[in-house]
């Protein structure tokens, strides 16, 4: 087993208990998604005031909600197309909130360089999701590129807990640019194959 696989398996133990509790209480998954966004906004506020460890703790709680909503929906047999759409839209709100929190913090500190780094990272993080969503409306699958939402979230937590947010922003920014490029290239290649004259 790989070490990231082992970490994932270890995290599943407490999450399994939380999923079972939500299923037993029949909590609607769309509500779980929404609560996750509210926690992410709270984490953004903590980032904005420079309380990184607090932000990290709130992000963990937020992402528990984010992680379990789909699984609760499956176990309650109430998966809907709207649920998937709602989840994706709320994910974007959560993502953007965290970046805005950091933009506010760096603006307060008078660091326009890091305001720009954060803003560009935010732009490419959103574009990473958009390119895949748009690509998958014209090709069956576009799962290429490293920097997806789970990676971003874990990196944000690492940056918050270890106070290395600048390095994290550089990683998110650069790898998001590469991921967007990957998806554009992959879609172009797939469509070229499909649309090639017979």
């Amino acid at each position, binding site marked *: 087993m790989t070490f990231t696989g082992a970490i*994932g398996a270890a995290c599943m133990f407490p999450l399994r208990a939380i999923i079972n509790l939500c299923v037993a209480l029949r909590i609607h998954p769309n509500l779980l998604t929404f609560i996750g966004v509210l926690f992410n906004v709270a984490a953004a506020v903590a980032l904005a005031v420079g309380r990184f460890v607090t932000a990290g703790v709130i992000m963990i709680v937020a992402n528990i909600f984010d992680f379990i909503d789909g699984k609760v929906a499956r176990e309650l047999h109430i998966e809907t197309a709207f649920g998937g759409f709602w989840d994706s839209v709320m994910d974007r709100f959560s993502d953007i909130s965290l970046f805005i929190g950091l933009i506010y913090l760096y603006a307060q500190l008078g660091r326009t360089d890091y305001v720009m780094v954060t803003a560009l990272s935010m732009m490419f993080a959103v574009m990473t999701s958009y390119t895949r969503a748009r690509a998958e409306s014209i090709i069956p699958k576009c799962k290429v590129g490293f920097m997806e939402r789970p990676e971003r979230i874990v990196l944000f937590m690492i940056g918050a807990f270890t106070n290395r947010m600048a390095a994290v922003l550089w990683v998110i920014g650069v790898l998001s640019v590469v991921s967007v490029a990957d998806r554009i290239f992959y879609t172009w290649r797939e469509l070229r194959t499909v649309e090639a004259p017979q």
Partner: protein
Amino acid sequence: VKRLLLMPAVVVWNALFWTYERATWQYDLMVITILAFVWLTPPGWLGDPTASGPGLIQWILEKIR
């Protein structure tokens, strides 16, 4: 020889044009590389507005000096 010479280019291409799943050894390697960058790079090199402490590389360089 040609294959050996092309290997670094192939590695760079595969790292950039990422198609691997999570929980593969390639994914682990990428994660280790990222964590090394985040934790080892001295915050001063990046002009980190909030970080405290020198970071491992800076600490080693200071010890050597």
